[in-house]
């Protein structure tokens, strides 16, 4: 198909042709085109359907503010919905599809909504779907969900990668139009570190869309020359295709760089996009201005655009959107649009100017004091109805209309930290206020300086000022000669005529009537107006519509615009792909993975792993023939209790504590006492939070007079270390105590079971007989003929047990040596499941009991809290509320019928009591199957539990729908006297 609307000129490369499809139909364009400009060049104005009424729509803008032309790009896994055709760069083979229509864009069955529009006004959802409530879940929500949304997702994994990056600069310049280029040049020449970012793929901003000269060059050529000089400056980083998304605290800005969006497939090794975090000392907002429409009846037909967009398509892309145009304006810039279009040889049938006193424009039909009151055309504009100053009307056949209601400074970023824009009567628009992000100033059109000269001038001066604040003297660039026309505008927001709908926000189908309705129903504040009508929501966030809606509300309330309020913006400036926000943190790289030293060995054995925080731990190690996890776990438990088992416990936190006050320090951070611990001895320690709740537990060994090694639970290793540093630095700053985390310095294995000593004796160089190395002994030893190691005789399983630590790099060799040495004893390697079974059998608390709500008393460890010394949490653990007689106590639980399985999380409810919260007596914290006892066992917290041993009670789980009668027993199911571990 030929590009029937392509005219001469423009900044496209006509030597190359790019083929693409839209809704399956083939078209062509050129490098430099956007999808929108290429479609318009091919005579395609209809690009989408509106969200609510499914009205046919075409683009109204030529940039990222576009509300209508949202399309789906590409196919397969790279399918991407809701992309603005106006900023999608054309590439060879691009596939684009329209959205929100069925069965086709030209015939959309859902456009029935348009006929029902009198029912679908503002607040429709709130009013209609309120009652009856029972219908919400089953009927209304599915109905609304079906109708809602525009594009569709591929539901496949994104094949592309996204990166995150960090940049630093003295000056960040946001937008590379005339003011941004002038600012960057001024700062760049002064040697400052400058980042110049622009969302467009080329620099120059509006200069590319204008015929205005700068000096002896066209504006676009001046931009090319300026960018060429900036490229030569090593202290300047030019970032095209980069959108500044938001302003954050202390000069931090986020940006997304679309590295590969303009390519069918990213180049090898390149990400699709990069999310940048930019640390700037100063920033200048030079983001230009966005034109706003004037609302009139049926102003949403394809072919009706912002006048500046019509001008941009003609000047930058060599596209005449129609062959018979008209322009509707209330200001001089609209007049410029008409003249530019006429100069391009396009028939401008009329210039309708709302200002009766506007200076006469010769050479075209200038209707002064006129208004466009309506339009016609089914899928595109065919004519407009104009009301003359004398009250008569005229129907003018046109297939494109440019509308200009004036320009709004693009102050979006300046309001990201609740900076309030201020109204400027001279340009009838809001400009950035003084309370914007610290270090940010605005220049050029973004500050309300609309002429080219003013843009260059303010850009230069703001750069000089910003650098002066950093102590960098910058010389202003010599400002080339450029147009300096004053702004002439007589604000008008909507045409008072007709009964039909006049559109304000085309993306959300908000009309003048909707604003009137919101006013009538007293939703008059700007924030209420937005929520009630949906004005300014969705992908464009009201860039072309917010001020219009606000101004109309101001008229209705009879208050001036500044008194009515302002809308401010939040990040992101334009929509960002989730992929960019996620970066590389997806799938297995969502978080770092920590591997224990036995991981390689365990992998070779076919171990099943479980995530414990960032760690991967062996959960169990299945043997051939085992088909369920229980078979493996039962075998591991039984073998350990009968002979010996080996378990990697490296993940437990290890903290070396040294100094002359180390013992005193431990007395303060532990509820029990450690300064009295003998050298070469280990003690169980209970650590409280200051509010008296248990924080963590573990064993601490005393290796020498001033040297201790603390262990923490795997989960709390980091918080405990942080807490110890807090105690050491903040609470007792003069204690002589030093800490270092050695979790990753030592590979540590538990060796447990009756044959544990026999196994270790094969490897340990020293005497570890019961006499030489009794229960709770520890020491620095050596293994395998001289390798330094640490040995702790501690037991979590209740068996004769040791933990042996070797430097991490020997961890792999150590597990292999232990397994080999254990062969004669039929040693097993057990995982976290078997570990859990054995600790429950022994009645040891772990994470399920250390739940951040429980005290030492709850755990049956109340006597461990020494009141003879001050320690963290000691005082508040004595609070009355934590010491009630009927408080929760740790108990053991077994089913009355041994064949019944218990369910973790079940609640205790006494016999004869109804299953309601008021009768809740506590709950089961940990449930395991004990292969030694042959039935399910559990630990639980029961009210007044220690006085209820032998009682029978029900455990009920309403989610799992289970009820089991249980008997309350001691939590020590195995070897209550502790004979095994002292053997």
């Amino acid at each position, binding site marked *: 198909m030929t590009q029937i609307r392509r005219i001469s000129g423009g900044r496209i490369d006509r030597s190359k042709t790019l083929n693409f499809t839209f809704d399956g139909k083939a078209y062509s364009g050129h490098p430099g085109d956007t999808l929108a400009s290429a479609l318009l060049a091919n005579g395609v104005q209809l690009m989408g359907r509106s969200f609510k009424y499914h009205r046919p729509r075409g683009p109204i803008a030529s940039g990222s503010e576009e509300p209508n032309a949202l399309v789906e790009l590409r196919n397969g896994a790279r399918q991407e919905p809701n992309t603005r055709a106006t900023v999608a760069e054309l590439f060879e083979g691009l596939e684009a599809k329209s959205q929100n229509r069925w069965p086709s864009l030209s015939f959309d069955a859902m456009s029935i909504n348009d006929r029902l529009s009198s029912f679908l006004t503002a607040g429709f959802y709130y009013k209609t779907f309120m009652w009856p409530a029972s219908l919400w879940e089953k009927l209304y929500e599915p109905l609304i969900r079906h109708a809602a949304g525009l594009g569709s997702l591929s539901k496949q994994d994104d094949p592309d990668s996204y990166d995150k990056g960090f940049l630093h600069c003295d000056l960040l310049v946001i937008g590379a139009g005339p003011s941004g280029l002038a600012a960057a040049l001024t700062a760049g020449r002064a040697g400052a570190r400058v980042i110049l970012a622009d969302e467009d793929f080329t620099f120059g901003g509006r200069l590319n869309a204008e015929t205005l000269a700068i000096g002896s060059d066209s504006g676009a050529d001046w931009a090319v020359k300026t960018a060429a000089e900036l490229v030569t400056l090593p202290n300047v980083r030019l970032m095209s295709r980069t959108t500044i998304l938001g302003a954050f605290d202390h000069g931090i800005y986020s940006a997304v760089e679309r590295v590969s969006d303009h390519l069918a497939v990213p180049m090898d090794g390149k990400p699709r996009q990069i999310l940048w975090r930019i640390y700037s000392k100063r920033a200048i907002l030079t983001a230009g201005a966005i034109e706003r429409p004037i609302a009139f009846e049926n102003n949403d037909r394809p072919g009706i655009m912002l006048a500046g967009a019509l001008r941009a398509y003609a000047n930058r892309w060599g596209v005449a959107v129609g062959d018979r145009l008209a322009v509707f304006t209330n200001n001089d810039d609209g007049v410029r649009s008409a003249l530019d279009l006429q100069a391009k040889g396009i028939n401008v049938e009329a210039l309708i100017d709302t200002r009766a006193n506007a200076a006469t424009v010769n050479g075209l039909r200038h209707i002064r004091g006129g208004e466009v009151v309506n339009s016609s055309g089914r899928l595109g504009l065919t004519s407009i109805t104009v009301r003359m100053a004398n009250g008569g009307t005229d129907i003018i056949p046109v297939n494109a209309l440019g509308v200009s209601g004036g320009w709004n400074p693009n102050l979006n970023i300046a309001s990201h930290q609740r900076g309030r824009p201020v109204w400027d009567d001279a340009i009838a628009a809001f400009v950035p206020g003084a309370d914007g992000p*610290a270090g940010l100033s605005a220049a050029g059109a973004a500050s309300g300086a609309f002429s080219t000269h003013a843009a260059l001038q303010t850009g230069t001066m703001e750069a000089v000022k910003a650098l002066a604040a950093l102590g960098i003297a910058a010389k202003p660039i010599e400002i080339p000669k450029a147009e300096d026309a004053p702004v002439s505008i007589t604000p008008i927001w909507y045409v008072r005529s007709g009964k039909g709908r006049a559109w304000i926000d085309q993306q959300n189908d908000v009309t003048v009537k909707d604003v009137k309705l919101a006013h009538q129903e007293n939703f008059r504040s700007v924030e209420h107006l937005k929520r009630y009508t949906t004005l300014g929501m969705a992908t464009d966030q009201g860039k072309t519509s917010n001020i219009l809606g606000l101004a109309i509300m101001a008229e209705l309330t009879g208050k001036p615009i500044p008194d009515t309020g302002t809308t401010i913006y939040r990040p992101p400036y334009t929509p960002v792909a989730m992929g960019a926000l996620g970066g590389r943190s997806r799938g297995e790289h969502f978080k770092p993975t920590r591997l224990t030293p036995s991981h390689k060995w365990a992998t070779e054995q076919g171990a099943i792993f479980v995530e414990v925080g960032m760690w991967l731990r062996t959960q169990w190690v299945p043997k051939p023939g085992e088909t369920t996890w229980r078979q493996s776990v039962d075998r591991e438990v039984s073998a350990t209790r009968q002979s010996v088992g080996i378990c990697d416990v490296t993940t437990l936190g290890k903290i070396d504590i040294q100094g002359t006050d180390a013992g005193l320090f431990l007395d303060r951070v532990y509820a029990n006492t450690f300064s009295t611990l003998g050298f070469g001895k280990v003690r169980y320690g209970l650590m409280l939070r*200051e509010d008296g709740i248990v924080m963590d537990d573990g064993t601490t060994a005393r290796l020498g007079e001033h040297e201790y090694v603390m262990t923490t639970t795997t989960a709390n290793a980091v918080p405990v270390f942080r807490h110890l540093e807090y105690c050491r630095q903040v*609470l007792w700053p003069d204690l002589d105590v030093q800490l270092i985390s050695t979790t990753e310095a030592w590979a540590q294995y538990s060796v447990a079971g009756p044959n544990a000593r026999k196994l270790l004796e094969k490897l340990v160089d020293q005497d570890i007989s019961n006499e030489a190395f009794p229960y709770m002994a520890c020491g620095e030893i050596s293994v395998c003929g001289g390798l330094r190691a640490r040995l702790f005789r501690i037991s979590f399983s209740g068996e004769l047990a040791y933990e042996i630590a070797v430097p991490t790099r020997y961890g792999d060799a150590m597990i292999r040596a232990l397994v080999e040495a254990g062969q004669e004893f039929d040693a097993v390697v057990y995982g976290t499941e078997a570990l859990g079974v054995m600790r429950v059998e022994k009645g040891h608390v772990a994470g399920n009991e250390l739940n951040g709500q429980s005290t030492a008393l709850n755990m049956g460890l109340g006597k461990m809290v020494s009141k003879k010394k001050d320690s963290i949490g000691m005082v508040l653990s004595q609070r009355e509320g934590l010491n009630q007689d009927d408080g929760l106590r740790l108990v053991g639980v077994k089913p009355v019928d041994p064949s019944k399985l218990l369910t973790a999380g079940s609640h205790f409810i006494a016999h004869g009591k109804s299953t309601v919260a008021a009768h809740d007596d506590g709950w089961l914290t940990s449930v395991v199957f004990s292969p030694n006892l042959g039935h399910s066992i559990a630990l639980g917290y029961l009210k007044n539990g220690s006085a209820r041993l032998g009682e029978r009670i029900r455990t009920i789980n309403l989610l799992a729908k289970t009820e089991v009668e249980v008997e309350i027993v001691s939590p020590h199911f195995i070897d209550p006297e502790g004979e095994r571990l002292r053997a």
Partner: protein
Amino acid sequence: MIINHPLLGPRDAQEFVYLGDASLIGRPDGMTEGAVDAFHDYLYLRDNPAGEHRELWYHEQGDRSWLVVTRNTVTHEVVSVEIARDVARKMGRSK
């Protein structure tokens, strides 16, 4: 947010862990009369100023310093950053 570490210069707030009000430095003595009341006030009664607030931050991804950061809760301006140990000593804390 950027925290100007007294030893390491400006660092991104992501490197830090926030704890809370710097009044936590003034921990009461647990062995004195009325300690329960003193600890109750210490732990649970906090000011929530709109304006300057002194708070404890920990440079976990850095040098493990606990810092006292004075931050304006309205503007997020960081007014001053001190080493918490120095602040604690000035408040008379020792062993």
